[in-house]
């Protein structure tokens, strides 16, 4: 069996100036083909104005085991949310 084409992750920016969003993945032999294939598959219905492709092997991801180390510290810092500070009703625009 021949060598499999590498896997690429595809990110699309939608019409309204939002950030690129992960939409899926595909196989392609190089970056140019990855962009072409992404165009053929993902924005078939005007879903986007910009495409990013990244080799899946180049993405560094957190693993479920790191969950507590990465995300727990934010649990104890509730003062980061505006609702932590009750405001008197008569005070407006805050």
């Amino acid at each position, binding site marked *: *069996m*021949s*060598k499999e084409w590498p896997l690429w992750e595809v990110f699309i920016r939608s019409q309204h100036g939002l950030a690129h969003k992960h939409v899926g*993945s595909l*196989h392609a*032999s*190089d970056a140019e083909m990855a962009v072409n294939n992404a165009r053929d*598959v993902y924005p*078939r219905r005007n879903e986007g104005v910009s495409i990013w492709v990244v080799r899946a092997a180049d993405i560094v991801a957190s693993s479920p085991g790191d969950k507590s180390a990465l995300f727990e510290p934010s649990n104890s810092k509730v003062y980061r949310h505006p609702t932590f500070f009750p405001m008197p009703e008569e005070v407006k625009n805050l």
Partner: protein
Amino acid sequence: MYAQLVETGLKKVQTAQDMSEEERAFQARIDAGVKIEAKDWMPDAYRKTLIRQISQHAHSEIVGQLPEGNWVTRAPTLKRKSILLAKIQDEAGHGLYLYSAAETLGVSRDELLAALHSGKAKYSSIFNYPTLSWADMGAVGWLVDGSAIINQIPLCRCSYGPYARAMIRVCKEESFHARQGYDIMMSLAKGTPEQKAMAQDALNRWWWPSLMMFGPSDAESVNSAQSAQWRIKLFSNDELRQRMVDQTVPQAEFLGLTVPDPDLKFNAETGHYEFGEIDWSEFQNVLKGNGPCNRERLATRVKAWDDGEWFRDAMVAYADKKAARAAA
């Protein structure tokens, strides 16, 4: 349906006693409606069952292009031809989304395709029937894609994140498929007597195979009960089939066509249609490889894969050469 009779490899539904501590925590997450993601721990049987289910679904999308490809060059108008091409391109996309979801479970695309080409992996029984007339393009969109939607909408809420997200994309596109099919049926039903007869003939041939797509009753099936517990199957085959009949019969009446089932009648008490016996020996026979088109479909897929090998290899050689030059 697109995935039929998926094996879990388990003899009985796992109870809390049968489970390890890890498995109990896993089941608790599913029960709480938390999505399982690719890197999360999961029981081996869950992983293997999902690979079987998702890849069978992917294979169905890809093989499902073949009966429609038959009519691209013979579509009655340029508009119909463009629509059909767009639909077939969507099916390729659906296959891609699903293969990608399966690959997150640690299996390679080439392994999945090899399993299809060797006959080890299955695809839906429905694509082993021939598309004999243009009206079949209408009936397939209306009945087959219609049934697919009924099956796939609940799967948007299934427990495995990558599969659920793939299903959301598929469902968004699938209603175009069902509607373009019904649109073809409407044109034919309003046309000449010959055209209407063509539409009726297509309904006659596709009705029962479409009901079979949902698979035999699985009320007693261990595999289905286990899949339900894992939330990768959300409704029984019979429930989904009933939903299909209930929504499709009035659509057939609107077309002025007759559903080919003398036992079909509406039960005002239950609010559901009652329908006749399904010939499951036909279904089993198609699954065994003896449907009208099994051999042709698989041979076409294998030929496409083999004929494309030089191209895949050439693209890899080209990419390697470019990378080597850039590095030098």
